[in-house]
């Protein structure tokens, strides 16, 4: 049980556009993630997302805070920033580096339109590895231009790594769509199984 006001104040900076639209997107995330089996138990996961990333981060920060009954700290960083930070040498932001390793929830945002970068994949894999060993939550948001995208072509190695480690991968909506088609077809009596 947590105080809503405190949660709101903590994550207020994520609300960057119209509150009604923001809420509508929260609803969509809520409905989409509600049906995923054992969602709570995964510490590291990839989520394909074509909506505004802040709404998903906001939803998940509330979700994990309430789940663990602790107002969680979080950090969000894009793949490109992660590379820049890693190669910054003497200009490296040590506080950010520590945060990336130890913050309660880390969101790594990779865009479908980003260039493929081997270093990025290695960096992400190492970071996820370290954080998993610390029992911390890491969410890789794969931002797509449409909900039908189901292949992370520029971070394939990371996705394979997640699959091999039995981490959760929440794909785009194509599968759901097919299910809907089947469901609809069944309702219409065209399919019998």
């Amino acid at each position, binding site marked *: 049980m947590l*105080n*809503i*006001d*405190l949660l709101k104040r903590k994550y207020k900076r994520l609300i960057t556009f119209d*509150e009604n639209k923001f*809420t509508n997107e929260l609803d969509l995330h809520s409905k989409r993630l509600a049906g995923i089996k054992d969602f709570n138990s995964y510490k590291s996961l990839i989520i394909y997302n074509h909506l505004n990333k802040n709404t998903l981060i906001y939803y998940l920060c509330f979700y994990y805070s*309430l789940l663990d*009954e602790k107002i969680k700290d979080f950090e969000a960083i894009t793949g490109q920033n992660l590379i820049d930070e890693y190669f910054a040498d003497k200009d490296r932001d040590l506080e950010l580096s520590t945060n990336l390793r*130890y913050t309660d929830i880390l969101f790594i945002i990779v865009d479908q339109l980003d260039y493929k970068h081997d270093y990025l994949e290695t960096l992400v894999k190492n970071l996820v590895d370290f954080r998993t060993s610390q029992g911390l939550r890491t969410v890789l948001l794969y931002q797509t231009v449409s909900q039908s995208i189901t292949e992370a072509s520029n971070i394939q190695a990371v996705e394979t790594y997640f699959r091999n480690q039995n981490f959760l991968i929440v794909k785009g909506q194509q599968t759901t769509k097919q299910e809907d088609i089947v469901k609809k077809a069944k309702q219409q009596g065209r399919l019998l199984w």
Partner: protein
Amino acid sequence: MITNLVSVLLSIIYIEDPKVMYKYLTLLQTSLKLNEVETRIIRYAQDLIERGEPIHSDGLKSKFSYYFDNKVTSSISLSNLDFAIAELRREQEKKTLAEDLLTLGSKVGNLTQNEIEQKIQDILKSSSFKGDTVPTNSLLKKDNAYEGLIAKDGLSLVVPEIEKYIGKATKGEILSILAFTGSFKTVYALNIAYENAMNGHNVLYLGLEDTGDRLVSRLVLNHIANTATKESELIKSNDIRDDKLTPEQQEYYNNKHNELVSLISDNLLVWDTTDIEYKTFNDMTTTLRLADTEFFNKTGKGLDAIIVDQLALLKYADNKKNQYDGGVMNDWVSYFREQALNFLNSTRQVTIFLVSQINRESFSQASRPKSKGQYSTTAASDSHEIERTSASMITLYKDNEIDNLVLVNIPKARYGQVPNRPLQVEVYGEYCHFGSLPNIRDKKTLTFSEYTAEDFSLKDLLTGDKK
């Protein structure tokens, strides 16, 4: 060894190291009854040491020759001084007991048998002289050993989550409340005072860094926060400071002030530095005795708890600032430990809360994401005696990223357990309130199952109130 006070005093003034000499002079002051001349000699020597002037032992002896001459039988070595002072104290205690019994004897004719028995009991109870009785072995058979261990009459720590780890504060314990500047130490200490006074415990609040009026004003704000049923009733401290209260709010505040006084003035004494003497241990003992008597007169029972806010300010007592070396604070902590276990030498036990400062290095470490708010037992800046003496240590860390949240760590819990991570506790500095707002709380809380329920409206997240 046959000792007299003259030999002891003379042996002390011949000690070469002024710091050691000062320590023994102070020990004489605090543990023995001294006559006027002896007090004057000690003060004279202490003044010289405090000013950093050399002490010429022969000169001192001749200055007070009317006291020292022809009385000294032998000098006492440094290694035997402690024993000699303890022996003198024992002699004095024996003498006091004998005098009390003689005084009682002169009044026996006017007393009934019950009264005589009662008076004898009182004298024996208040006397520190225990004769040659062998101390009782604690390993005794009891009818119900379990019963005596339950902290049923313990003092509240205000937040149930904290009590889950530490338990209630029981008699004979020292609890330390540690935080860096501006991290709600006084707010928490005042909330402990308020809560326990409301529960009928007698609490003495020694406010060494603020005026009594301001402390009371903060208690009133907390009383309002505890009793308010809607947010519009709450009053912020800044609004009082800036004279922004409406006439209705002013009236409400004044009524609440008087309501608070009616409710707890018998059980809570708030004394600031203008009210009390605290320069020496003897002064402090007198202050505590006055408080105990006051409580006894008002409630029929003595003092239950003392809150010292804050300990660091005692280092300026008795003008010791010039030669402060940390030892002074250790002495004060030891003094309070003795009071907790054997209050005013009466064998009674009381609970003592010591409010103290966190050192800068620990604050810097606790500000890192890896160990946010996670102070360790060595975090106290005033005295390392705190970590040894405290039964429990409660540290507070203000989370700058989010208002109204403080991270509470419990690095030591002698009768409980230490949490893995700091607890997140609501705090409302503007209302001088520690913990969630009790009557407003239900509308503001959210659980995981509510959040993930199908019928939960996510719009509520943005409006704040759960409908």
